[in-house]
């Protein structure tokens, strides 16, 4: 078993006086795809934000490559690609400008690569159209285009398939499969049934607090 990239143990989180989950354990190793399951409001987004280091109000420990996350923060961020609930797209800018700004810190990514990534998510005809003219699914695709240029080993994708059509979902599933065989790890939430070989799932209901903990 390879060393897990990201490992969480004993995670408990409370939001707005409500215990979301207690003693949650998870680990993803290179080549893993972990789907977090649970009904609306069960804390999926919160869990992903905790794992990405955005949400800090929790108990428990998160380790990156075997070391506590807080000590490895920069190294962790260098190797993480997170797409959140809100896609991180500026509506006034075009898809190309958005992607360029988002990936400007990455060496070796030129306009040619950006355009081919936008082509991969079927946005090539729209690269110069301001994003607020695009549909919700298309805006989502702008954010997802970053996946095609990513060499980060860990992806955390919140509601990755929301508003994406059937073809889009199929090509994303192919991409996820390719990532897994290349040794990338993926944690995602989605309400779509996922057709990727070797995907594991983790249900938050298993870690729901027992009734007596609620009071």
């Amino acid at each position, binding site marked *: 078993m390879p060393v897990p*990239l990201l490992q969480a143990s004993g995670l408990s989180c409370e939001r707005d006086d409500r215990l979301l989950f207690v003693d949650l354990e998870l680990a993803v190793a*290179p080549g893993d795809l972990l789907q977090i399951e649970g009904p609306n409001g069960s804390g999926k987004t919160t869990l992903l934000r905790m794992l*990405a*280091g*955005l*949400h*800090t*109000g929790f108990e428990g420990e998160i380790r990156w*490559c075997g070391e506590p996350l807080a000590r490895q923060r*920069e*190294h962790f*961020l*260098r*190797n*993480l690609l*997170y797409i*959140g*609930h*809100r*896609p*991180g*797209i*500026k*509506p*006034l*800018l075009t898809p190309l*400008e*958005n992607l*360029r*700004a*988002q*990936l*400007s*810190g*990455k*060496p070796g990514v030129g306009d040619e690569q950006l355009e081919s990534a936008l082509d991969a998510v079927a946005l090539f005809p729209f690269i110069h159209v*301001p994003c607020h003219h695009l549909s919700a699914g298309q805006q989502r695709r702008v954010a997802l285009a970053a996946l095609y240029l990513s*060499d*980060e*080993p860990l992806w955390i994708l919140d509601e990755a398939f929301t508003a994406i059509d059937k073809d889009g979902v199929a090509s994303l599933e192919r991409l996820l499969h*390719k*990532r897994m*065989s*290349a*040794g*990338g790890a993926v944690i995602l939430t989605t309400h779509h049934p996922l057709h990727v070989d070797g995907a594991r799932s983790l249900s938050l209901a298993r870690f729901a607090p027992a009734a007596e903990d609620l009071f």
Partner: protein
Amino acid sequence: MLKLPRLTPRQESQPVLPALLGVLRRDLLANFRRRQELFNPLIFFVMVVALFPLGVSPEVEFLRQSGAGILWVAALLSTLLSLDHLFRHDFDEGVLEQMLLQPQPLYLMVLVKVFSHWLVTGLPLVLMTPVLGVMLHLDGNSIGYLCLTLLVGTPVLSFIGAIGAALTLGLRSAGILLSLLIIPLYIPVLIFGTGTVTAVAAGLPVGSYIALLGALLVVAITCAPFATAAALRISVSNS
């Protein structure tokens, strides 16, 4: 089938400068696309200054005496007016989350963001000042020093204001709380800014005033982004 290279955690650090230029370019572009929003504080600035001669007194002596103060107070209030936009759009769109997850130091990212905010809100005020100064019968020497103090002082206002804007990001309407938090911190800048022009008019040496304003700017640039970055982390974590 194409064999992909094994993905391994990247060890080397990433270049900082291109990322910062990317942030600057995106912010300036987004601001350019909604320029009508940027005209708001500028028009407010011009209106407030234009209303003083009408509302208080059009006498040359009064305007010459209080002109610098009027311009400084108007600049301060119009900066305050534009502060809420500094991080609000980015926060709502999720762009801020992405910024916090960049491996480049957040301190520098914030520095660039505040600088670009100053470029589109503070700098136009400075450029507008000579015209308004003439309107308030200030003499050439005073106008020159007034522009200098505003040039040094308005970035301080932006940097200090950024802390308040970041702290109040999670609130639905930050307006009044933001003002209450920030205005007390603006007072030293205001005092030294107007003090310089008063000293010029009285023929006193102004080196110390300008030096103190410069010192405030240095402190604001070095310390405020740290506080802003910490406040942003808190606001995003609680959202």
